[in-house]
């Protein structure tokens, strides 16, 4: 079972009221999701100023096109799709290199998936302050290639299902799964540098 969590609020009545023109209901939806959308925008654009623009444009567009939201997907998935599109437009404007494309073919051939193996200590994240931990996690994500990064962020941080992630990014389900595996393994390896059990030596594998 994949989990798609929308814990916290029952968005359906709020969305219905917002669609009827209830500004306060729409405001509640914004307040509930703005933190997640801002984080997503920062991960995809890797730029604070762009992320602020994406945040604003996402909710403006959502409000403008609220009558087009059909309710057969979740409202959250719908605004995530708007945010991803806005963020990608920013990226394309800023860079012209191919690394921006999320649908490019990735060579998933015989490259090494795992280089280092070392067990982690007990609750390894406790060794770091909140700020340090945040810095470690963010820079690990930022070092991923965009196609891996966006899949990981949507799937494991924003907790969309595999199908929703595929839908938002215009990818097939197998492509999402294969990118997710690689993203998770790369992050695991990056975090191992910080979280490994003290005294353990890593060894080469596969």
């Amino acid at each position, binding site marked *: *079972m994949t989990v798609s969590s929308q814990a916290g609020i029952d968005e359906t009545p709020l969305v219905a009221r917002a669609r009827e023109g209830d500004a306060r209901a729409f405001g509640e939806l914004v307040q509930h999701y703005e*933190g997640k959308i801002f984080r997503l925008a920062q991960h995809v654009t890797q730029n604070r100023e762009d992320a602020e623009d994406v945040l604003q444009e996402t909710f403006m567009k959502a409000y403008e096109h609220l009558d087009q939201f059909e309710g057969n997907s979740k409202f959250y998935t719908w605004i995530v799709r708007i945010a991803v599109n806005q963020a990608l437009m920013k990226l394309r404007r800023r860079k012209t290199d191919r690394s921006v494309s999320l649908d490019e073919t990735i060579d998933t051939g015989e490259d090494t998936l795992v280089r280092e193996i070392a067990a982690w200590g007990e609750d390894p994240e406790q060794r770091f302050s909140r700020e340090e931990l945040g810095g470690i996690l963010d820079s690990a994500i930022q070092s991923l290639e965009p196609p891996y990064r966006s899949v990981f962020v949507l799937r494991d941080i924003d907790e969309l299902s595999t199908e929703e992630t595929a839908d938002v990014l215009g990818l097939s389900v197998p492509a999402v799964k294969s990118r997710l*595996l690689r993203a998770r393994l790369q992050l695991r390896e990056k975090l191992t540098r910080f979280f490994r059990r003290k005294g353990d030596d890593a060894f080469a594998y596969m």
Partner: protein
Amino acid sequence: MLTCKDFLNELTDYLDECLDAESRTKLERHITECPNCWVIADTTRKTIQIYKGMDPYPIPPDVETRLMKALEKKMAEKQK
């Protein structure tokens, strides 16, 4: 016999708990016999858990104010 490579290919479905019972049993048997794959599965699971536990970014007050002002303007226009 399941190889380490087979195990890695199934790792995402294994950690997301979307495998059938038979495949799951095979993978679990593999990690009881292969310490390397056990470590990979364990540390990958922890990687996912740590990221899931992150709080969303707080919105800086000036960004929040700009967003709310822009929305209010938009809402006022729509209601005209």
